């Protein structure tokens, strides 16, 4: 009984450690291939368009509503202390430090990351990845590296847009709907937000971009050879990427604060 339990947990531990090792190797290979010619600018641009431009609508939509709900919640909380004038700083700081990077990363995972896993996974199943290999073209370089680099480059831009739209959403609710002064909203924001907050948010965005594309390409690349396996890989990719984003966010915040 005891031996069976130990064996069971041992097997799980081994599997987890092995998977972590493989993921790390995968990331290292990706970075290595990024440094080697030929540099695939066309592929990179295509991926930036896919991750960036095509996520814009979702980012704008979630950004504006997040800002609006923050404005609403913030207003009623702050009013208890008679501090409605601080709404601008409350909205801006939560957007820039936390909600912008985290929610953008989650949206990109759902929209672009899952598609990435499915695309690479299907290419694996239909032997298109093997075909690249037989043509002496590294699939890591051709397929994976441009996606990861694009994710790292694009996510900070998406986060910036998310932040700006969100802050405007808070402004709409606070100033236009609930009637705090426009100058107060802006002034409290300007006095409270420091460059450190902005850099921190961008740093988060960069690392989330890496996490999301890394996990999603990895899961696609190592899909098992069936339709069921592809569905499983996509689900796992989205779940793992989202969870890792949140965990990493905690660690990064504790260091940055």
């Amino acid at each position, binding site marked *: 009984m005891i031996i069976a339990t130990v064996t069971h947990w041992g097997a799980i531990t081994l599997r987890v450690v092995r998977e972590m090792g493989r993921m790390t190797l995968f990331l290292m290979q990706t970075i290595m291939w990024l440094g080697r010619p030929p540099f695939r600018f066309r592929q990179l641009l295509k991926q930036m368009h896919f991750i960036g431009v095509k996520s814009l609508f979702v980012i704008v939509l979630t950004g504006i509503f997040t800002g609006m709900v923050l404005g609403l919640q913030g207003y009623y909380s702050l009013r208890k202390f008679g501090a409605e004038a601080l709404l601008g700083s409350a909205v801006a700081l939560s957007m820039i430090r936390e909600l912008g990077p985290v929610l953008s990363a989650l949206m990109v995972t759902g929209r672009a990351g899952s598609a990435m896993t499915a695309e690479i996974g*299907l290419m694996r199943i*239909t*032997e*298109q990845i*093997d*075909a690249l*290999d*037989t*043509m*002496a073209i590294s699939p890591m370089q051709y397929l994976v590296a441009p996606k990861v680099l694009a994710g790292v480059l694009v996510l900070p831009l998406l986060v910036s847009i998310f932040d700006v739209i969100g802050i405007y959403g808070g402004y709409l609710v606070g100033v236009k709907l609930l009637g705090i002064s426009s100058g107060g909203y802006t002034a409290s924001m300007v006095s409270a937000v420091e460059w450190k907050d902005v850099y921190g948010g961008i740093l988060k965005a960069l690392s989330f971009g890496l996490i999301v594309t890394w996990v999603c390409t990895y899961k696609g690349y190592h899909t098992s050879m069936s339709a069921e396996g592809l569905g499983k890989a996509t689900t796992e990719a989205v779940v793992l990427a989202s969870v890792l984003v949140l965990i990493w966010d905690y660690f990064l915040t504790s260091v940055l604060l």
Partner: protein
Amino acid sequence: MSNETPIIRLVDLYKAFGEHLVLDGLNLEVPRGKLTTIIGRSGGGKSVLLKHIIGLIRPDRGQVLVDETDITQLGQRELNEIRKKFAMLFQGAALFDSLSVFDNVAFPLREKSNFNEAEINFKVLEVLEQVGLTGMEQKYPSELSGGMRKRAGLARALVLGPEIMLFDEPTTGLDPLLARTIHDLILETQHRYRFTAVMVSHEIPEIFGISDYVAMLLDGKIVEMAPPAQFVRTQNPAIQEFINGGKPECVSSESESVQEARRP
């Protein structure tokens, strides 16, 4: 290298997936410039064998010698050098979904040659004509039938003029008529390009008509390899059973006459 030495030699190859031993001390010599067909049970490791030849799978033990270079010992860069001799037609053709037929065929040229766009254009149209896909350049793989995909896959494989072509069940999923036209196409292009071909197939007796050599993979080993006429007369009961579709009787002279008629 002389015409006598085999272009590919597999020496004492072992490969297991988990507990399942797929290749069990396999030896095979592929003669230069000939079409060698490997037959065997479904799931018996034929595709695995083919993938060993081009280094997509590394063996647990043994050697894969291509022109006497052991590719199992090579790093990625040297392996890619050797792979330039090869092209492979995959079971499902493995066309890139995101590219049109033209771009699929042009892909190896753009990646691996120094031709300019005009020359690429010329070469692609030429090879598409050879496989009978003129007018299909702008179609996408999802718009093609199974037979047309195979043709496009063949065109993409041929476009760099490989020394060695690997065919992984080129006629699976096609009706008998289409299968025959694909077989004819393989024969025709082999005569034109003079490549060495290794084909994995189930199509008995058709492959006897087009192959120079037939090899039987059984229990992880090549148990017999001979020219078709000799191969069908083998005394090995397992092979007799396999090529007669479960009936352990001697092969009629029919497949030999097929061969006489088809082989140019």
